[in-house]
């Protein structure tokens, strides 16, 4: 490769790369924003009717590692975001803060709890799920 070729290939890759990566992620940004709104407006409609939106709503609310009691509340009020007092904000922030590291491994913790508390019918359910093969 001579110098000019080097310049060309490297600038081509730089420009193509940055443009494509940005376009792609901007596109994702818009899509995620869009479907987020769609889902939420759908769910707030559904919430006015008797709730039946998701299969297992109960097991979810308490992320195992979140010490802050306000967390579940936050989960249950997805549409209310304005007009929250300073105090609640602080609590929420603390909850959020404490949630990340634990929250990521939540499923592990939760799984362990489930396997301890499993009733015999729950076991049947487990079996039903594991038996297909």
């Amino acid at each position, binding site marked *: 490769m001579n110098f000019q070729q080097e310049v060309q290939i490297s600038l081509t890759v730089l420009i*193509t*790369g940055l443009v494509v*990566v940005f376009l792609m992620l901007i596109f994702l940004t818009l899509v995620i924003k869009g479907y987020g709104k769609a889902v939420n407006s759908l769910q707030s409609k559904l919430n006015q009717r008797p709730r039946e939106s998701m299969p297992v709503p109960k097991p979810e609310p308490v992320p195992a590692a979140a010490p802050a009691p306000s967390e579940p509340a936050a989960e249950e009020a997805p549409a209310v975001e304005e007009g929250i007092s300073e105090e609640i904000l602080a609590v929420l922030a603390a909850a959020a803060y404490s949630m990340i590291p634990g929250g990521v491994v939540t499923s592990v913790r939760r799984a362990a709890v489930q396997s301890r508390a499993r009733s015999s019918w729950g076991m049947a359910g487990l079996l039903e799920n594991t038996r297909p093969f």
Partner: protein
Amino acid sequence: MTIFSGFLKSVMKLFETSGLVGNDPRNYVMILIAGVLIYLAVKKQFEPLLLLPIAFGMLLVNLYPAIMAAPTDTENGGLFYYLYLGVKLGIYPPLIFLGIGAMTDFGPLISNPKSFLLGAAAQLGIFTTFIGAIFLGFETRQAGSIAIIGGADGPTAIFVTSQLAPKLLGPIAVAAYSYMALVPIIQPPIMKALTTKKERLVRMEQLRPVSKLEKILFPIIVTILISLLLPDAAPLVGMLMLGNLFRESGVVDRISKTAQNELMNIITIFLGTTVGATATGSLFLSWGTIKIVILGLLAFCIGTAGGVLFGKLMCRLSGYKVNPLIGSAGVSAVPMAARVSQKVGQEEDPGNFLLMHAMGPNVAGVIGSAVAAGVLLSILK
């Protein structure tokens, strides 16, 4: 007499086949380097889960090169030859992404999708480093592999390198994981240099909660869009999202747990030791490796800067609602980079909790790197 001569002959044969005679002298340097890496992994706890297997693989291959030997007509290959097939054929990195997906919570990203932009900006290091590598004389495919170090994502780097420049796997993997381990040292000075105190003091609004349905739809939508538009990223992104769907669906705990634990651990052992075992003295100890190490550091720094600067831009445009410190988390290196954002932010204002806000760009960085990898593979392959 003849027995004694037989004995002597056997001992001579033992001696001649021993590493003392056969080994390349450069191997001893590599053994030393492996020792240093083991020290860093064990004592300094720099990414020990990968650095320790890598270092030990490096140690073994330089003591006993036949452990990577390909099979011949008369003899079996070495142990690592077979385990390495998973790297060579591109099997391990997507499976590790499966486990990562099952461990990752994309909630912060979904609740603030603008984070994607920071995850894009932090890929700047990849493409600028490509230029550097080209001008330092690397071939285009090698340059692409070196550049991807800037993605700050081990499996992505290995996936790309195994397809573009398999011979560079050793130095690139070692560089990638080393710099990922050094994130808490590399990033803060850059972050501070590029931001004002006022910017670093910005407190961000808390994120909206994300419903379960949104979390379930996210991996499906991302898979469809990225796989369609950029097929070369599909193995990585697809498996990442499959793992995440396992996690968020909540109905397949069994396999979600295995994907993030046992399967991932087994592959980590095989991947780490065999990637380390590509770093033989004759391949590693070259001017090229030093260039790779320098370029990799550069890529990392530029990526960090790209994220921070874009964060600065968002900060100004939003009227100081975005703290630019979360931009550096866009390089991936989950969750360390996000914790660095948190820490640097708290140095200015102990009451400022940026961690969750930084998780958005952080996981966006993983997707961003995979997308960048797809672009490099598509253009250079």
